[in-house]
């Protein structure tokens, strides 16, 4: 039993953090948030070249041969840096395309960063379950940047090119200026059925969304602590006041809770532990709770500065809200957890 990062995993984390940190500084220099709408192409290409998009694919499929825990490490860093891009859809798409001979080139393009995938979470088959899709899917993250849509139905997994007939994409702003949503309408759009099972893919998605939320919970804690050490009021650093210090302590508790359960869920899912599905729901609930509460406290801790657009504090809070609504809200997951207990 070991829930720490191996030295190999630490290397992955440091490498990812280094690249994202450099790119984030570059984005800032180019005008910050305003430039962050949609895709950061330079970052996307670099990420693909570094193998991030195929981190957990088999080596035979052009991947690095790691697993969900390593993808989790990547997504924690993506959350910390608020990196723009259709990361989740593209990584899931690559998984879904593996082993389909007809999609061999498609997969290679996806892993190479030449094709972007957005994921449509449709657990009730609202857009149908057959080879033609009809219906509307709202709030699809980075839908405007997608070349392909990956549709996770109740059981089935299908893909549809964004340019196919009957696919209409309307890009919307979202609460989060660094991540756009899209409303996608399918009108008898032709879909390709993939051999993948939607259930494990959806679970992996939940873990990765939780990981992104964990990144926010961690980064906002660090931001608050750093600010509390340097900002002075009443002749002392504000971190010396118990009100601020204890708020930071509570943020540390939430971050540690999130970090532990997300790690545990990722490993349990990789190893097909019987309780893994339960822990996935728990990770999503606790990580998004930690992200929302920490991001809120981080705005508070920054005082007036936290209320400005210029400071990053608001971006973490807004991203946290998007993650709360990705792949099921806290309430939805608590209901999923309560259901068997109610029956039992």
């Amino acid at each position, binding site marked *: 039993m070991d829930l720490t990062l191996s030295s190999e995993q630490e290397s992955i984390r440091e490498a990812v953090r280094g690249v994202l940190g450099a790119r984030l500084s570059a984005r800032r220099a180019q005008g910050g948030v305003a430039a962050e709408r949609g895709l950061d192409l330079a970052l996307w290409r670099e990420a693909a070249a570094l193998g991030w998009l195929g981190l957990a694919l088999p080596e035979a499929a052009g991947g690095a041969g790691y697993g969900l825990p390593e993808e989790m490490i990547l997504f924690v860093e993506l959350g910390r840096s608020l990196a723009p891009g259709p990361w989740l859809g593209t990584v899931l798409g690559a998984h879904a395309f593996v082993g389909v001979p007809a999609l061999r080139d498609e997969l290679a393009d996806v892993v190479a960063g030449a094709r972007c995938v957005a994921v449509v979470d449709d657990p009730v088959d609202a857009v149908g379950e057959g080879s033609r899709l009809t219906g509307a899917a709202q709030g699809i993250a980075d839908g405007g940047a997608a070349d392909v849509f990956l549709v996770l139905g109740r059981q089935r997994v299908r893909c549809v090119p964004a340019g196919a007939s009957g696919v209409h994409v309307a890009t919307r702003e979202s*609460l989060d200026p660094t991540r756009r949503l899209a409303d996608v309408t399918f009108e008898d759009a032709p879909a390709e059925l993939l051999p993948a099972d939607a259930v494990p893919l959806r679970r992996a998605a939940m873990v990765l969304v939780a990981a992104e939320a964990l990144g926010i919970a961690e980064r906002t804690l660090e931001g608050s602590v750093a600010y509390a050490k340097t900002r002075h009021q009443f002749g002392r650093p504000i971190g010396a006041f118990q*009100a601020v210090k204890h708020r930071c302590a509570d943020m540390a508790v939430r971050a540690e809770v999130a970090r532990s359960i997300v790690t545990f869920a990722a490993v349990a899912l990789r190893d097909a532990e019987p309780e893994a599905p339960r822990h996935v729901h728990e990770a999503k609930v606790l990580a998004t709770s930690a992200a929302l509460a920490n991001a809120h406290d981080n*705005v508070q801790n920054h*005082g*007036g500065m936290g209320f400005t657009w210029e400071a990053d504090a608001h971006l973490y809070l807004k991203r946290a809200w998007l993650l709360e*609504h990705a792949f099921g809200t806290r309430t939805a997951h608590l*209901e999923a957890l309560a259901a068997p207990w109610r029956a039992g």
Partner: protein
Amino acid sequence: MDIRFSAAEEAFRADARAWLEANVPRGPRPAGVDLRERRDYDLAWQRRMFEGGWAGVSWPREFGGRGASLMEQVIWYEEYARAGAPEITTTFVGLNHAGPTLIACGSEEQKAYHLPRILRGDVVWCQGFSEPNAGSDLASLQTRAVVDGAELVVSGQKIWTSFGNVAEFQELLVRTDPEAPRHRGISWVICAMDSPGIDIRPITTLTGDQHFCEVFYDEVRIPLRNVVGQLHDGWRVAMATLGFERGTAFLSEQIRLARRLEDLAALARSVPGPRAGRAIDDDEIGRRLALARAEVAALRAMTYRSVSLAVRTGVPGAEASIIRLFFSELVQRIDLLALDILGPAAVERCEGSPAARWADSYLAGLSQTIGGGTKDIQRNIIGDRVLGLPR
């Protein structure tokens, strides 16, 4: 004990209601990006109130106000909000802060010049108190003013100046004696915003709004006769009217909150809930709504109690700081509840939709526990001044 108003007070209410019904602007207010449009709109409305005899309801009659009693003020602000009259924003500092300060501490000349202009809606005032390193700790302000002949020469920086870029005058706190203890050596000065050496830069807030400004002062010359009260005595002058901002005017905000909560309940009757049925049928959401409504009712009862205590004792009570803290956190609880009720619509922006309004309100509401003293400072004030706990 009585929660009803007297016959005379009810007559006042009828007058206020009738006037407001006849005069409140019908059309929507300018959406807000162009602050000058907003200023013009607000000043026109202020002039209308002035002409109708309803400007400066709480100001003494001798200074052109209506001289309403505290109870009449309660009634006015209730009716004002019920009538959907325009929220007081650009004219707020003049009416509720600078004006009352001049009435309390200004010279005859200052009062004669400025008070009518504020009441008539000729001018907009802004505040110049906070600085980048003097937020919660206001007394540590560093903007310097040196006496040079009959003038003060001001250099430094202010921040969080609302509507600074559309204001004629500013109530400005400057340090005139750097040797004196923190709370001494500060002066309260009337600053004309078109003075040479002033540079005003809007701050974009997390909502995208730009009504706050940074103001930079580079050897700005202000006549010494613009000092209000005594030189170096500005801290006392500023504190003299701090209570105004937390008084009866606050009732309008409360009533707007109550109305927003009713809107939210209507919304919860129209959107699906997390388990089955409508959102309002959910046990948890229904109870959170009911609790919020109970707290809004308590807020009104607290304000009534505070006002009637003030009437009885003649001084504003210590409850004001309690009401303020409770209000600020209640607003945030209600905004959060709204986001939970809205579901995914809360994060997808459709301009003008109810969801977008609630999301904007949630974001703007983050300032409730920051601006005008953070919630930590509010709790300090309650602990120190209301409960008498040691510092």
